[in-house]
């Protein structure tokens, strides 16, 4: 009995040592970014690996980051990013929800055909569509506007439609039939009966949409020219141009600030993400 107990304890110790070592490597880059954003520019690259700044200069770095780059302040970049992300996220999730509802609960002519179109767009990487999208947006005089960054997301994405369809299929049809007998219309059924049931899936989709749009780099890089309309990820790219800048302290401070909202949202909502991913993965 006693040796069993000892073995268990040893097991736990080994487990925690291994898990902590992995954890260190997973988190080191972020800790390094945090530490470097506190280092003064002069000591930035002496003992680069160190997580303890030799000379603290957080104030200068974060003030410089706050001032922004190319004459545009950090707040402007943040405002642009929030504007684009919120609009894209709301549109994307809401319109995907309507489409998924139509596909699963309404029997209409052509429904199956359009659903197969959804599945085709699921397999086409967005990077492939970006050049012709650019050409269209240029014709519509929308290049270099923030609307251009919203549009590709706004009308829903195949991934969410597919995910929500999977969830709707899991909800018994008797629920909406009962509501229909009570005199509910289609829209009332969706919002009063189904939305509360699939709320976790809607949360998961919203959080994913937030991450995708917030961190998107490829589309802004192509669609935007004027720094005052840039999102944070593009603003960071401005910092990288070695000819104009080498203020690393400010670059790291701004990188960290751009990651902060994503990390906060993750910590608050991680339950939904973890469950959502597990669900998608299994249903496949």
């Amino acid at each position: 009995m006693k040796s069993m107990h000892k073995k268990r304890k040893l097991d736990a110790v080994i487990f925690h040592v291994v898990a902590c070592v992995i954890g260190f490597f997973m988190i080191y880059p972020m800790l390094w970014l945090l530490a470097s954003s506190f280092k003064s520019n002069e000591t930035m690259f002496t003992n680069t690996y160190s997580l303890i700044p030799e000379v603290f200069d957080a104030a200068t770095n974060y003030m410089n980051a706050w001032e922004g780059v190319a004459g545009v302040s950090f707040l402007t970049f943040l405002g642009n990013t929030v504007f684009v992300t919120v609009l894209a996220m709301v549109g994307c999730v809401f319109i995907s929800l309507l489409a998924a509802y139509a596909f699963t609960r309404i029997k209409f002519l052509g429904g199956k055909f359009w659903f197969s179109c959804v599945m085709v767009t699921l397999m086409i990487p967005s990077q492939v569509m970006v050049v012709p999208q650019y050409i269209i947006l240029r014709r519509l005089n929308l290049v270099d506007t923030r609307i251009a960054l919203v549009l590709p997301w706004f009308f829903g994405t195949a991934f969410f439609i597919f995910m929500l369809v999977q969830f709707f299929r899991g909800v018994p049809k008797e629920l909406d039939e009962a509501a229909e007998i009570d005199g509910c219309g289609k829209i009332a059924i969706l919002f009063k009966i189904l939305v509360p049931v699939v709320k976790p899936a809607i949360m998961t989709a919203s959080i994913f949409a937030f991450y995708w749009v917030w961190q998107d780099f490829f589309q802004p890089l192509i669609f935007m020219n004027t720094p005052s309309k840039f999102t944070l990820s593009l603003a960071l790219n401005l910092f990288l141009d070695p000819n104009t800048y080498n203020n690393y302290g400010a670059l790291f401070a701004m990188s960290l600030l751009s990651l902060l909202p994503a990390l906060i949202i993750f910590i608050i909502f991680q339950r939904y993400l973890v469950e959502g991913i597990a669900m998608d993965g299994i249903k496949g």
Partner: protein
Amino acid sequence: MKNKVKEYKRRDNIAGYVMLAPWLFGFVLMYFLPMLISIYYSFTDYNLLNDAQVIGFDNYVRIFTNDDTFWQALKVTFIYTIFLVPLRLAFALIVAMLLNTKHRGLGLYRTIYYIPSIIGGSIAVSIVWQQIFGNKGVVMSLLSVLGINQEVSLLGNPKTALAVIILMGVWQFGSSMLIFLAALKQIPGSLYESAMVDGAKKPTIFFKITLPMLTPTIFFNLILQMVNGFRVFTESYVITDGGPLDSTLSYVLYLYRRAFTYFDMGYSCALAWILVIIIAVFTVVLFKTQNNWVYYESGGE
């Protein structure tokens, strides 16, 4: 023998299309039209300023017969995907099995391991990676502390630069890990119990029970990650800008350069369609192989 069209109620048709309309509008504007335009331009010479000149298959012929950079970008993307996907999945599975035990603090570890996947797509993370493996970076400074003075950093060396970018991808194993973790929890405990009763050893249990039960999840992940691998861009653009000597030039980065550095839109559209076909072929091949190795409990539904 009812008329087929009459099976659909008129009211349902209207309701269906009202609900679908916003998506349909976006589909036409952001997918269908771009697709048609893209196919058309891939057969033209077009630089945004002049009118497009139809040149037939010239772009495709040039890509395959007279473009070394295309083959280089294709090679880089293949190597990236072939190394990244198995390594990431293997790592995700090992860590998922480590976490599929009864210990304290599992939730905290899971959160920490998942964070890189959450923020990994951000350009900020690519910047960090560049600084860690770059010239004055963490690795170089550690090496010099250990008394090893290197002339070139891992990112500066054409032989190792791609490995650094692959490592960044492997580092983001978190979402695959979560999927594996959920799948591991679905395996019925009775299977393990009867194996233990039969006196099976741990490796046998892993290869005869765990792995076969996971093959549907592995298959799903394989396809997902493969498509993701083929579209790598930000890492290649931010960390190395395709260098040194094009050793990290990803396919999408090359496509981007063709379009927005050389303004060769037609050529870029042709490159895009070749990528679509490559992805489609790989997906179909993977689906064809699934009968040989993917185990479905319910008999392959």
